[in-house]
């Protein structure tokens, strides 16, 4: 990341844009991992402080995002340990198979004699996505957030979460399938995933 490279070179003009960029990205992650705004803000700020306290340890600016998210992940874990323990649930492929709940919302609208509206579906999809992400078990949510929301690679995600490449791929797939299932009504099309 360019801002990190400039900060390492001592360029003070990179400070504010770097902080704003990292704060925004990390807050989005902590917001969906922690659940409460206050917790998300606190974890994002703790992450920023840790990043700067250890900035001399950043060897490669290209890897700054993975480095920052690893710190954020650790703070999220600590926050979770301090809060109420919520047991994790494993998603089986079996429960993610397409079923009748997949009937797209467009079909439901047609059933009521209304025309499907692509823009309406898109807006609803956006609104429902956050709910669906929050409802994902944490094991899958963290992988989906890092891979699909933050755009980190499989290898970077594995490094951040201390997982094998295969474990990241498996969790990502199950997380994506769970999201698809949860959002199926808002994904448009004709009978997606619906059994005949």
């Amino acid at each position, binding site marked *: 990341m360019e801002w990190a490279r400039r900060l390492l070179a001592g360029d003070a003009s990179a*400070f504010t844009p770097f902080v704003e960029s990292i704060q925004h990205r990390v807050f989005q992650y902590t917001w969906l991992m922690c659940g409460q705004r206050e917790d998300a803000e606190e974890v994002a700020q703790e992450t920023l402080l840790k990043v700067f306290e250890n900035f001399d340890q950043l060897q490669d600016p290209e890897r700054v995002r993975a480095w920052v998210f690893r710190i954020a992940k650790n703070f999220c874990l600590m926050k979770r340990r301090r809060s109420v323990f919520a047991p994790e649930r494993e998603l089986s492929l079996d429960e993610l198979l*397409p079923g009748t709940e997949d009937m797209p919302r467009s079909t439901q609208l047609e059933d009521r004699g209304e025309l499907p509206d692509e823009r309406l579906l898109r807006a609803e999809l956006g609104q429902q996505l956050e709910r669906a992400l929050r409802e994902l078990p944490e094991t899958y949510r963290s992988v989906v957030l890092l891979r*699909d929301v933050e755009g980190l690679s499989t290898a970077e995600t594995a490094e951040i979460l201390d997982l094998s490449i295969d474990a990241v*791929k498996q969790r990502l797939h199950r997380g994506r399938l769970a999201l698809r299932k949860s959002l199926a009504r808002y*994904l448009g*099309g004709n009978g997606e*995933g619906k059994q005949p």
Partner: protein
Amino acid sequence: MTAQHSNHTHSARDPRCLEVFARLSEYLDGELDETDCRLIEEHIEGCEPCVEFLRSLRRSIEASHHYAAKVEPGRIPPELEERLKQAWQAALARRRSA
């Protein structure tokens, strides 16, 4: 994975569909080799419900790519910003002296 499909009647329990179902993320992420990609594409070509399933999965993933939290983080308090600057300067000093 077998490539036989010929417009089979789709069922969530159809083993041919299940094989595709299990590898769709790797397929969409370009992580499968050419042979596995071809087998999946040959299956999907003859299985309209699988095409629809793949389409909805892709759309769901694209929605995640475009996700933006509606809640913005609050402004960083001035005292924290000062601590961040001091920590950065101290880290730079350690780096130079290393």
